[in-house]
Each structure stands twice: as structure tokens, then as C-alpha cells.
């Protein structure tokens, strides 16, 4: 790589807010996050927590209501040229590989699309056919010639996802945003796709933010895990810490019901997945929190704070941070 490696985090989100419906829906409600180079961060949570909205906002598919996004040391401006520059460094793959590919375009066209768009501005050099073949081969579609002329419906679901990955990585982005990358694929091939994603990290130093509801996926490939609830990050830290020693009651409950976990008693939360147009007062989790329901919060003397005081993640004193009054009460060392 001829570019000098910059220091500092690759991606920096500061107090990002994304609202819909004129402020009625707070899909992303003040999120600050940093992603380092060559790092994989899993963004986990249930539907409505804002994780998909957040990554769409990072790549500019949703407008920011407020806050700043900094990529590779440069602040992202929302205008056309700013977004174009952003999309050379940040790319995205989607949950539904069938829907994400235009059925009238060949696989070769799909992979070349990004190259053609950016070539016009002189940002891409080299023979298109070679670049496409390289991208396909790297994504595991070998020999590339066999795939270039075919249509998406002629290949399998797993192969379609590889086409999406090839198309995104053909631009050699530094950050890949993956929206539920394996959720719609058969279980036996998920591992291959996840391993493929990690190969870009290990070989090229690409960073990945993987949005998923599957904690097993986080265990498989993530360096860090950020848990979101109703638009905010409620817990973040190294994957081993968060997944084996969760501190936030929501994370604890989530992990307890995952079938792939052992040694945890199931805490099934009542109620539906919450609605981002009606965010509770105080700690947004308090209506479903087992600590409040069981009276533990009262015993700790924090129940009024839980119901009345909104809070964010602890300041950066440790890699593993939590947004919970109970935890803030007795800071860990």
C-alpha cells in the first residue's frame, strides 16, 4: 500500500442522532463509537434497536439529524462529493443478497458497478475485467470466468452473498459494513462466509462493523461487541468480556435465552421488542429490567434513578463499558 498508514481510529462517531418523522422516532439516540483499523465490531440487538439505521447513516443512506462521523481522520460532509469520497473508504453488504442484486444485470456488471461509478472521477485505475476477476476470486468464486456472465438467479444464495462481497471489496474499502450478512443463508454455509469476511481483515487490515442479532456470530468473528437497545449503546467491550461476563441486565437476559449458551439461567423478558417512537423515560430499559421487576433496584436504592434519569455509557475508563445505574453505582476496577 502506497498510502501512509494514519494513526488514530478508522471510524469515529460522536453523538450521532438519526431521527425520523420529524423527531417522532429516535432510531439512533446519541451514539458514540470508535472502530480501529483491522478491527471487527459486532453491533448486536433486537429489531428496533437502531443498529441497521446506524450503519446506513454511516454510509450515507440515511441523513444524520445531528452528530459527526469521522473516517480516516476526515470529517464526513453530507454533500455529494463528500459522500462519494466516503464511499471509496466505506462499503456495505446487505442481508438479502437476492434483493440487493439487480436481476437484469450480470454478476460481472454487479461487481463492476462500483468501479465504474468511481472511475469517472479518476479514483479507479486499471483494467476493469481484471479488477472484477480479482474481486470474484478473492471472494471465493473461482474460476471468475464462470461467474462473470451469469445472472444472480442462476447461482445459489451463498454465492450471491459472495458476489455482494466481491462488489463491495472491489473498491478496496477500509471499512466494511455488514447488515446481517449470513441471516438469510443456510446454516451450513454461514461459516464459510464469515471466514471469508475475516480473511479480508487478516490479510488486508479491513475493519468490519457487523450488524446482527446472532450472538454466536459475534463470538465467531468479533473483536469487540456493542449491544444496542432503543437507539443507544448500552454495553460495549471486548467480545470475550461482554459475551462471557455481561454487565448490563439486557445483555445478561439476551445471552441467557440464546440457545447456544450454557450455564446461564434463562431470563425471559416480558413484553414486546420496544418501539423507538415511544422511548421510556429514565433508563430506557427500566420497564423490562429484571432488576427493577425483582425489586433489586429498590434494594440498591437506585430505582428512582432508573425510572427518571437517562444515562449513557460510562466514560472511557475501561475497555468494557456499560450504561446501567446499578453498574455505575459500584464502578469496577
Amino acid at each position, binding site marked *: 500500500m502506497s498510502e501512509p498508514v494514519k494513526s488514530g481510529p478508522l471510524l469515529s462517531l460522536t453523538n450521532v442522532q438519526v431521527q425520523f418523522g420529524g423527531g417522532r422516532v429516535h432510531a439512533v439516540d446519541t451514539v458514540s463509537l470508535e472502530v480501529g483499523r483491522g478491527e471487527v465490531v459486532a453491533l448486536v440487538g433486537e429489531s428496533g434497536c437502531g443498529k441497521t439505521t446506524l450503519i446506513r447513516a454511516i454510509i450515507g443512506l440515511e441523513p444524520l439529524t445531528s452528530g459527526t462521523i469521522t473516517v480516516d481522520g476526515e470529517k464526513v460532509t453530507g454533500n455529494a462529493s463528500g459522500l462519494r469520497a466516503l464511499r471509496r473508504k466505506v462499503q456495505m453488504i446487505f442481508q438479502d443478497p437476492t434483493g440487493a442484486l439487480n436481476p437484469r444485470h450480470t454478476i460481472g456488471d454487479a461487481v463492476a458497478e462500483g468501479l465504474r461509478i468511481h472511475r469517472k472521477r479518476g479514483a479507479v485505475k486499471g483494467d476493469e475485467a481484471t479488477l472484477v476477476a480479482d474481486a470474484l476470486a478473492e471472494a471465493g468464486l473461482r474460476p471468475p470466468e464462470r461467474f462473470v456472465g451469469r445472472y444472480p438467479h442462476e447461482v445459489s444464495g451463498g454465492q450471491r452473498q459472495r458476489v455482494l462481497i466481491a462488489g463491495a471489496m472491489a473498491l478496496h474499502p477500509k471499512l466494511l459494513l455488514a447488515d446481517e450478512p449470513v441471516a438469510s443463508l*443456510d446454516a*451450513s*454455509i454461514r461459516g464459510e462466509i464469515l*471466514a471469508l469476511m475475516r480473511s479480508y481483515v487478516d490479510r488486508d487490515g479491513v475493519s468490519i462493523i457487523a450488524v446482527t*442479532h446472532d450472538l454466536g456470530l459475534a*463470538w*465467531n468473528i468479533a473483536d469487540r461487541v456493542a449491544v444496542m437497545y432503543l437507539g443507544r449503546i448500552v454495553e460495549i467491550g471486548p467480545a470475550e468480556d461482554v459475551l462471557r461476563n455481561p454487565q448490563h441486565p439486557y445483555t445478561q437476559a439476551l445471552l441467557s435465552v440464546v*440457545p447456544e449458551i450454557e450455564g446461564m439461567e434463562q431470563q*425471559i423478558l416480558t413484553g414486546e421488542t420496544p418501539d423507538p417512537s415511544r422511548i421510556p423515560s429514565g433508563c430506557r430499559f427500566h420497564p423490562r429490567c429484571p432488576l427493577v421487576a425483582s425489586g433489586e433496584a429498590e434494594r440498591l436504592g437506585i430505582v428512582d434513578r432508573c425510572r427518571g434519569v437517562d444515562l449513557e455509557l460510562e466514560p472511557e475508563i475501561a475497555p468494557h463499558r456499560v450504561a446501567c445505574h446499578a453498574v455505575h453505582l459500584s464502578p469496577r476496577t
Partner: protein
Amino acid sequence: MTLLEIRDLHVTYRSERGDVPAVRGVNLAVGEGDTLGLAGESGCGKSTIAAAVLRLLPKGTDVRGEVLLDGEDVYAMKPGRLRAVRWTGAAIVFQGALHSLNPVKKIGWQIEEAVLLHTKVSGKAARARAQDLLVRVGIPADRLDHYPHQMSGGQRQRVLIALALACDPHVLIADEPTTALDVMVQAQVLALLEELQHEKALALLFITHDLSVLTHTCRRLAVMYAGRIVEEGPSELVFTDPQHPYSRALAAAFPTIGDPTSRMNPQGLAGDPPDPAALPTGCPFHIRCAVATPECATVDVALRDAGGERRAACVHVGVTHV
């Protein structure tokens, strides 16, 4: 007492492209109060089996073998008897997607419809029963007048469970009931299913691609591949110590959190699930198998004893290794 038994079932769909063998010789049995999980991926035939139990397969489909509900062969029944047995003998809980329920009818009406079709009760009694069922599955009774699109995914799934129980069946088939639900909602629905199954001593056949879910809900487990059962046995054992290479791969796809061997080590299978219209020769799994031997390409193996009430269809099973 065995309430559901399938004997040597073969199902072949007829299509313009030729015959598609979806199920190729499946045997299974579920007794009263017992739970059997059926795991597999797309194209393995599991959903075909669910439809086959109540003779819901498209016209012209070739079905051979027997499907016995409480000893009676569903495929030997006359239409009148079949209609009577459907939903009262066995019922299916489908995936709770928006199109499993009639979008222009209130959910109360849909449950009442099921009751009225099979029992001679008054409209009022049917409504009361619908109300009871909704409450039993954890939905407030006033939702009787709601439309499907007004409810969340989890609620719709509960409605489908209530619908399935409308006529007090003895056998319940759950076809991917929690796929596409959030983890917490999935846990709620699974807990509900388990409760109801215990309470009514139902024979439950649980079909899904998620092996780990089956380990908790079902006593026994069968793994399907290319229209056949390739491994079966007690669910814990099958999940933690799978004997068939495919079951091993499927189990590895759901890593246990906290297990160091799967940390930063995603494991999957090369290739894709087989197309039932174009199956490989010999053992259909051999082209993706890490431990395939040359004979696997020509010899198709039947289920063999693998110790501990388990059976697996693999040449390596039942062979003592040095």
C-alpha cells in the same frame, strides 16, 4: 402410544423440469407427550414432511409409504374422514410471516372459523373458545378484533399457535415457528410451546434449521439431508457428539458462546445444500464431506447403529477405529 408414525415415506414432486424427489424413504415416530425435532436446511425435505402429514401436498405429487395418525393411514382416508381429521387429529403451526394469516380478516374470526368448521357449536361458543385460546397463549382478549398487520411478529406467532390448538389436536407439527423472530421473542414463544406441549401431552414434531433450538425443546432429534434422515438420537447427544459429518457441520454452525474452539474460528461447509432435482451419486453428502472415502461416491449408506440409541447414515459409523 404412538400418535404419529411415518413409514418409508417417499414424496416426489412433478414439475416441468422432471421429477423432484423431495423425500426419499423417511421413517419416524412420535408418541404421546413426546417431542421430536427435525433439523435440516433448504431443500432437505423437512417442510414436505410437514405438508405430507395432513395431505397438503400439491395435486399430482407422488406419495408412497404410510403416514399414520393414531394408527390410521392418512393416505388411505376418504375425503370426508380426512377433513374431519385435519386440525382435530393433527395441526400445523406455520411460520408467523404476514401471509400465514388472512390479512383481511380479524384474528378472532380466523380462530372461530377453525372451531366452527370442526365442531357443532354456536357462534357465541366459538367466540368464547377463541378468547380462551388467545388468553392461553398470552394475548389480551381484546385483540380478538385486531387484524394481523396490527400485531407484532411474536404476537402473530402466538395467534398461529392458538389457531393450531383450536380443535384440541393430539399431534402438533411446528414448521419453523420461530425463524425470523427476535431472540427474546423466540424464547418467549418456545417457552409457550413447551408449556402447552406438557399441559396437553401433545406429540410434537418440531421442524427447523436451528439445531441448538431443538436441543432445548425436543427429547429426540433427527437431522435430514437430501430427503433422508442422516442421523437421529437423543437431542443432547446428537448436538454435542454428532456422528454424521453433516450433523457435525450443522452443529458447528451454531457455536457455543464461551467455547474457545469456535472463537475466531467460523466453521462451515463448502458447496451448497443439494438440489433435490440433481442429487449426487452414492452418499449425497460426499462432495462436501471432509472425511469422504472413494466408495462414498458410489455407495449410499442406510442408517446404522451408532451407540447410545443413536443412528447415523455414514460409512464411518459403527466401525471401530484403531
